[in-house]
């Protein structure tokens, strides 16, 4: 990758697209192309020592995971540049709408299709040894008919059933937490899509692990 700008500097007219929990997502250009800059600004509530190492580690790992995920057949933005000292990743701009903002207005069939694809992508990541770590509906952009996965900031390489189940648990938590109305249909479709890619045996194993994690939760009663 070539460096066209000094570390952390955003070329083009920068526009804050989104202030996330750990990074600002800024629109700009890179080599004349429309681009997104993901800038991990220092979080001042954290000790600088702790904060720097977390930002550095997450920047490197995220770039790696975005790349590996695409190789595993899951659409992700193309990487343009990784600036480790500036904890900034420059990547392809994905035009579209976050799945989170569409769920409420989607018809049942469209929702079923989208969540089936969501589940299938999760299974593809898992079988490639990747755990996304932040599988929420806010981190999926619907572009045309396809789902593009973003925000690999908490992703890591793992093949443990436990980590894969935690991944699915977050989707479940998000669906029941943020989209209570659509959660049953969405979850069923999601699991269906997952199972189709992973195979039934593997899917059952992840489900068992998921239930075991839920039972470990405080005051949980799991049917």
């Amino acid at each position: 990758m070539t460096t066209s700008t000094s570390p952390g500097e955003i070329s083009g007219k920068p526009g804050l697209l989104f202030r996330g929990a750990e990074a600002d997502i800024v629109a700009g250009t890179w080599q004349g192309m429309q681009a997104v800059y993901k800038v991990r600004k220092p979080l001042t509530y954290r000790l600088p020592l702790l904060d720097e190492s977390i930002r550095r580690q997450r920047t490197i790992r995220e770039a790696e995971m975005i790349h590996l995920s695409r190789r595993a057949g899951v659409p992700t933005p193309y990487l343009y540049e990784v600036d480790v000292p500036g904890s900034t990743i420059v990547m392809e701009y994905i035009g579209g709408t976050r799945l989170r903002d569409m769920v409420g207005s989607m018809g049942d069939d469209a929702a079923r299709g989208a969540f089936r694809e969501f589940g299938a992508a999760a299974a593809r990541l898992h079988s490639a040894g990747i755990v996304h770590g932040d599988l929420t509906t806010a981190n999926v952009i619907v572009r045309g008919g396809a789902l593009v996965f973003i925000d690999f900031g908490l992703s890591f390489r793992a093949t443990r059933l436990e980590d894969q189940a935690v991944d699915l648990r977050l989707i479940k938590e998000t669906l029941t937490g943020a989209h209570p109305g659509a959660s049953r249909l969405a979850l069923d479709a999601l699991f269906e899509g997952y199972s189709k890619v992973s195979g039934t045996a593997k899917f059952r194993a992840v489900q068992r692990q998921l239930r075991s994690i839920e039972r470990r939760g405080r005051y949980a009663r799991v049917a």
Partner: protein
Amino acid sequence: MKRYIAGVESTAHTFSVSVVSSEGEILSNAKSVYKPPEGAGIHPFEASQSHISSAPAVLTQALEGSGVGLGDLSAVAYARGPGLGPCLRVGAVVARTLASSLGVPLVPVNHAVGHIELGCLLTKTVDPVVLLVSGGHTMIIAYAGGRWRILGESLDLTLGQLLDQFGRHHGLASPCGRAIEEAASSSRNYLRLPYAVKGNDVSFSGLLTASKQLLDGGESFSDVSYSIQETAFAMVTEVTERALAFTGKREVMIVGGVAANIRLSQMMSTMSARHSARLTATPLEYSGDCGAQIAWTGWLAYKSGVSVPVAESGVTQSWRLDNVDIAWRD
């Protein structure tokens, strides 16, 4: 016309009775807190014995101190759960007796929902992302579609347990939060500890083990206290920030016993400012377990039609707050 309700809290170490009015005035909030021996945690049976012996005095103090006549109570609320069985049963017996003798309805309340609703009342918070941190809970919660929803939580220990178990390892008695906070305030030496954020959830078990090992390896209690606070509080602040960014809400509220920690509120305040959200914290007197949280939430539930016949008024040790239908919010 103003109405009155009594609430009984006894989920863990605190036995407390409070009387509140339908206008949200807290007229009394008497309590007695069971203190375990040095180096030990709450023994459920011992705690329940302590509650039994302090119940008559606490009840009398709360009822007489409120200035409300017994005949003016519209209902009696009790903490049905979650909590320690033997402790919960003491509160349930007291509440049942009071309700039956007055001939008024008995209202079951979820203790965690109680923390949140009392916090909202006292800080005039309307629709917050809630960080509930105590010995019994570590959860990030927001209201949506008829229930308080859990957006993230600890996968193992609660923040209170982390601090207590670490403190007890050093020979302190639970609750150890204040002693750890004091010890931490004299250190600026950060020792590296595992930082475990998994999605919207946190995990403290590795952090506890590593912290104990540092102590055993000869590091000072004050340095390890500082490091455990910096690490654990940054973790819960980060997941709260994630929930805030995700939901787009404008208010953040800290409730539960650990809300009393100044370093935690500093971090939460810095984080909230970044998102232009208003941070509120329940006043110290009411941030820990107390009867007022049960009485006030009991009132909200009672006025929306919730009550339970004495014969069915059991306790529920495991009762997640996202299983409670909230009829009084929309």
